[in-house]
């Protein structure tokens, strides 16, 4: 999953980026409102962490601008003020959640997970597809109660497929959402990782969950016989 951080305080943005990356996200950073808006509009991000006090264009204006353009990417507002008015204004402008500085990093992660689930219509931290269970908080994956060990890359791919279960995802889409833009990736690498995943997730089971859609991409779904 790909997260955009818009925060002018570079030290804060840096450590949040590090923390999010360590939690398995792909992170983009912007240091002012203008840059943030451009990235929100043009980059395939899954969620945005947006500071309110930003140079050039403030966070609330950025938010209202991207919402006007019909971009419904989930947004968590960050603010140094805990005035109720700001919260109300923020949520009214189209924010999905709100965090007051200083925040618990764990809380930011939990709220991000919750927003990403909401996007994929899942309600719990655990995503279930047939007998496959993916715990997005602990990154544990089981199938039919059996633990499956995945590498970080494999997990990222599976989680992205799971959040978008039943939707067909193109190779480009997958690359954009699970790899950082500055590392030039061949979309063939997706095939390689899909293959690894299949070996671990589908191989020992009759019911296959990862499907290839010819000419379109891949989809994770439970096929009804």
């Amino acid at each position, binding site marked *: 999953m790909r997260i955009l951080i818009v925060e002018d305080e570079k*030290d804060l943005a840096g450590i*949040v980026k590090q*923390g999010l990356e360590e939690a398995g996200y792909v992170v983009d950073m912007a240091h002012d409102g203008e840059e943030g808006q451009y990235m929100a509009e043009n980059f395939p991000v899954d969620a945005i962490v947006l500071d309110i006090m930003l140079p050039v264009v403030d966070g609330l204006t950025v938010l209202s601008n991207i919402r006007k353009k019909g971009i419904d990417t989930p947004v968590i507002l960050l603010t140094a003020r805990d005035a109720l008015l700001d919260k109300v204004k923020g949520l009214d402008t189209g924010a999905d959640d709100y965090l007051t500085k*200083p*925040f618990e990093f764990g809380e930011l992660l939990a709220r991000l997970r919750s927003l990403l689930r909401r996007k994929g219509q899942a309600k719990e931290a655990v995503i279930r597809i047939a007998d496959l269970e993916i715990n997005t908080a602990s990154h544990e994956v089981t199938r039919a109660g059996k633990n499956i060990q995945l590498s970080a890359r494999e997990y990222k791919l599976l989680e992205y497929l799971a959040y978008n279960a039943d939707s067909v995802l193109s190779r480009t889409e997958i690359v954009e959402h699970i790899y950082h833009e500055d590392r030039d990736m061949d979309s063939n690498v997706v095939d390689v990782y899909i293959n690894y995943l299949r070996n671990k997730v589908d191989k020992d089971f009759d019911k296959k969950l990862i499907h290839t859609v010819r000419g379109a991409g891949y989809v994770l779904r439970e096929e009804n016989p």
Partner: protein
Amino acid sequence: MFKSIKLKIIIWFLAIFSIVFAGLELFLYYELEDVAIGFVDDHMRSEVDFLASILKVEEEHGQLEYELVEISQAATGEYAEKLSGHYYQIVSSEGEVLARSPSLALADAELPILPSTKEASFQTIVGPNKEPLRVMTRTTDFSIGPLVFIAGDSLKEPYKLLGSFRRIVLFVYPVVFFVCGMGIFIITGWALAPLKKFSTEISHITEENLDERVGEEETAVELKPMASSFNTMLSRLEASFERRKQFLSDASHELRTPTSIIKSYCDVTLGRDRTPEEYRTAIRKIGDTVNRMVELINRILVISRLDAKAIELKPVRIDLKEVIKDVLRLMESSAEKREIKIHTEGGEVNIRGDREGITEVFTNLVGNAIKYNRDGGTVWIRTGREDKMASVEVEDTGIGIPGEELDKIFQRFYRVDSSRGVTVGTGLGLSIVRSIVEAHGGKIEVKSEPGKGSSFKVLLPPGSCFLGGTFLKKGSPQTPFQRLLAVYLEEGDPLLREFHLSGGLPPQDSQKFLRGV
């Protein structure tokens, strides 16, 4: 006990009322007594005149002796009745009773013989019937020698009249006293009602609703000045409260950012095991951020102390040129790093002021001139005099400040957009500069052209007279005026500030002025 205005009014009113009323009653009583006794006296006088005229007539006819006997017997009415209280008696100059009214004769009583002249004299005595008796004595000459006429009239009737007057007064007095007392009680209550309402209104105003005002329109004319000054005071209080609240909220806001950096570093770093190098990096970052916070907290403290006039500025003789030289020594390296040239112009300028404060002012101004300058730029520092004030101008060739932001740069926590590629400070520097300059009775002016540079000019009075706390804190305020002045300065009354800024009084004169009042 006498703290109550109402009680005071009632007591004073009733006291004055009692005295006036009692005086009036006494006056009336004596007047009445005079009139009543006057009647009796007149009656006796005419009686004696009558008797004397009869005797005179009879004397001409040579029948005086006979007539004297006749008078003793032939009386009618009250004089014929035994001890009726109406008597007459005629006595010879030897003291022999020649004639008396039957009212006396029947009881064989006599009226006392009192010293007598030709003029009628009156006296009140106890009569033969133990009654109060008014007697009149007069001597009239006859052929047989002077005869003393003594007439007596009982005062029973007039005394009865006076008695009932007294009784009426004694009854009426408490009633009138009570009625008037009630009346004044109601009137004072009614008169003091606006005051009570006013005080109720005031008592409802707390620090929570300082925006409320006392209704000046509906207040009684007498209370209007009070209501209006109370409202003015409220406005000042509110503004000062608002300022402090804003500062507190801004300060906490500013502290949240470094706090979140520290917290995020801790949370993320402790999230997993790391290499020593990673820990070092994290701790270094946290350390840097803590330093930033300390700087911020120090500045917040300076500002709030300056606000509360808790910093004591010690006036000493300072050469501004010297101060700038000291400041430049500290700044040299950072200027050299970015190849910024610093030119100083003008001669020595002496003022009286606080060395530390003035140094802080120019450290900030010169620091900004370097920080916001372009690489290879120039800073000019000019010292001189202007309108009897010492002036120092710091000009740079930096990014400049857009016109709409010029007013805001002295506001606390205001920072020109960091997008201009300048590392931002605490946003408190210029605010501190202005506070210190104003505490010295000076002012600061700024001119700027975006893209070309800015120029800050500090004007300081040659013998700075310290404002408010610094000046008055020396000894705690003593006279009520000094206290008032302290309060005014504490609240930053704009008028008074204006007065000081416009040159105000030279220090020795303001000292004198304060001692005078």
